[in-house]
């Protein structure tokens, strides 16, 4: 535990340094993409606990993101809306007006998302497979429709004017946190129990694993970090709208997992980076070929080819480890 804490502190120090370096020397566009990759990593790694480890196919991640984004924005942003009764515009000043309030606001967003995860998870996790996917999809839609009709936070127009608090330091601090927590979790009794539920729920139950309770806990864990990621994204984009968190966003995160290898955390990280950076990297291809729009075709083609030739994803269920690297080195025999 002490060792883990040491790694955590060291890693956060590194992100702090990296943040300064990126801000000083690297193109703003590149920094933006790196930051978006970080947010994708948080989303993919947290969803991996639900979809990959526990095997519960959830399509509600964008809903939890939306909750996190709006709740954290509520604490940091001035809300302006038209008051029908007083027939004038009113403004509500934010509760946390300084940057110090950013982390509490993010955590609040995460906690509300986690609470929503519990409320949604307890009834829906009785469902399996496709049914659960549809139920969670419905949850995501409910969230965005409610926001669309909630004028105080801008309704369908979205909420502008979020302070630009998200930066590489905060985003990657949470990346480090979610990776380390999920890594520890994956190797704990709890993580093994989740895998057992994925592999065979009936057998897990007759081995004494309280399957329903653990599934809800995995759901809450994933929802918390989705909420935090939503808050980070909101304060990076500075404007949030319900359309940002539609179900395509959930599907995008699922695709990241499938691409990287469902159940592998390394895969989730790689899938998140590839899917976020690839469309941007393909812009060069597009301008080189002189064919506007071709990048999305290439992007889709890459996904299709990968699924044909490597249906288990880039990493399968494996994790990147020294053992795996050693096995990949030429001229050496694999461990037995």
């Amino acid at each position, binding site marked *: 535990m002490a060792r883990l804490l040491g790694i955590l502190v060291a890693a956060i120090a590194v992100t702090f340094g990296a943040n300064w370096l990126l801000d000083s020397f690297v193109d703003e566009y590149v920094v933006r993409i790196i930051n978006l990759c970080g947010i994708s990593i948080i989303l993919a790694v947290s969803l991996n606990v639900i979809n990959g480890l526990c095997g519960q196919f959830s399509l509600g991640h964008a809903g939890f993101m939306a909750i996190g984004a709006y709740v954290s924005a509520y604490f940091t942003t001035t809300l302006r809306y038209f008051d029908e009764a007083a027939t004038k515009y009113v403004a509500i000043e934010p509760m946390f007006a300084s940057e110090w309030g950013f982390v509490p606001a993010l955590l609040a967003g995460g906690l509300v998302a986690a609470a929503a995860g519990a409320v949604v998870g307890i009834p829906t996790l009785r469902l399996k497979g496709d049914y659960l996917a549809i139920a969670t999809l419905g949850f995501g839609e409910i969230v965005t429709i409610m926001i669309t009709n909630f004028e105080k936070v801008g309704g369908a127009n979205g909420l502008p004017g979020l302070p630009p608090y998200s930066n590489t330091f905060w985003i990657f601090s949470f990346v480090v946190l979610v990776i380390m927590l999920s890594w520890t979790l994956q190797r704990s009794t709890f993580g093994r129990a989740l*895998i057992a539920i994925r592999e065979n729920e009936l057998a897990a139950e007759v081995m004494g694993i309280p399957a329903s309770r653990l599934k809800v806990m995995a759901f809450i864990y994933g929802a918390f970090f989705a909420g935090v990621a939503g808050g980070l994204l909101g304060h990076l984009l500075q404007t949030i709208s319900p359309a940002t968190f539609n179900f395509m966003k959930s599907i995008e995160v699922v695709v990241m997992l499938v691409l990287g290898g469902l159940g592998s955390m390394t895969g989730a990280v790689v899938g998140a980076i590839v899917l976020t950076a690839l469309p941007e990297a393909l812009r060069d291809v597009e301008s080189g070929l002189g064919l506007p729009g071709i990048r999305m075709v290439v992007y889709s083609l890459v996904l299709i080819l990968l699924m044909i030739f490597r249906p288990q994803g880039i990493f399968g269920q494996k994790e990147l480890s020294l053992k795996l690297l050693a096995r990949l080195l030429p001229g050496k025999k694999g461990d037995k």
Partner: protein
Amino acid sequence: MAEPILELNDINVYYGAIHALKNISLSVNEGEVVTLIGANGAGKTTTLATVCGLMRSRTGAVKYRGKDIGSAPTHGLVKEGLVMAPEGRGIFPNLSVEENLRIGAYARTDKSDIEADLKHKFEIFPRLHERRRQKGGTLSGGEQQMLAIARSLMSQPKLLLLDEPSLGLAPLIVQTIFQTVDQVNREGVTILLVEQNARIALKHSHRAYVIESGEIGIEGTSAELLDDPRVKAAYLGEA
């Protein structure tokens, strides 16, 4: 005689409108191997599912060590020593053999004894020891059944429910599995066994019940049933 470790009294279970178990009453005494035999769809597996809390009875009581467990959750019963090895082996295919066994010990709190117990299980099942790093799904059918039994034993059952351990296995492997059942029983575990393979189940048990369309038809000691002309005709393929 002492109080039975498991007692089913007047159990009625329904799948929707289908009346699957009709007034089932049976008992298992400590130290026994009791078998339930019967054809497909007779209600054998449903009976086991009712015992371990996966199905609920509308009437009567399921008593385990004198306590009514009619509404206890399945995972809670494991802590009490009532464990099922599910039909179709039900191992975790993507976990290694050793991980499968460790999950068997999930409900245990005596973490220090688990290592010793694991070693003991590897002694009983040397094949599993050879393959302890292999994924469960790569084992042969018989080995998977061994693993399922060994995994159930890791949770230190007092009463083990075995659902069709011979299903889909070659006759020679079935022999080995049943020798294991004998050995487990000798080590003090009471066993309630569900089998379609009536002959071998009767040879390896003390008492037996025959289930026919959700009702207990015949009951008695296994030796009696092996000689019973009705059992012979219907389940042993003898005229």
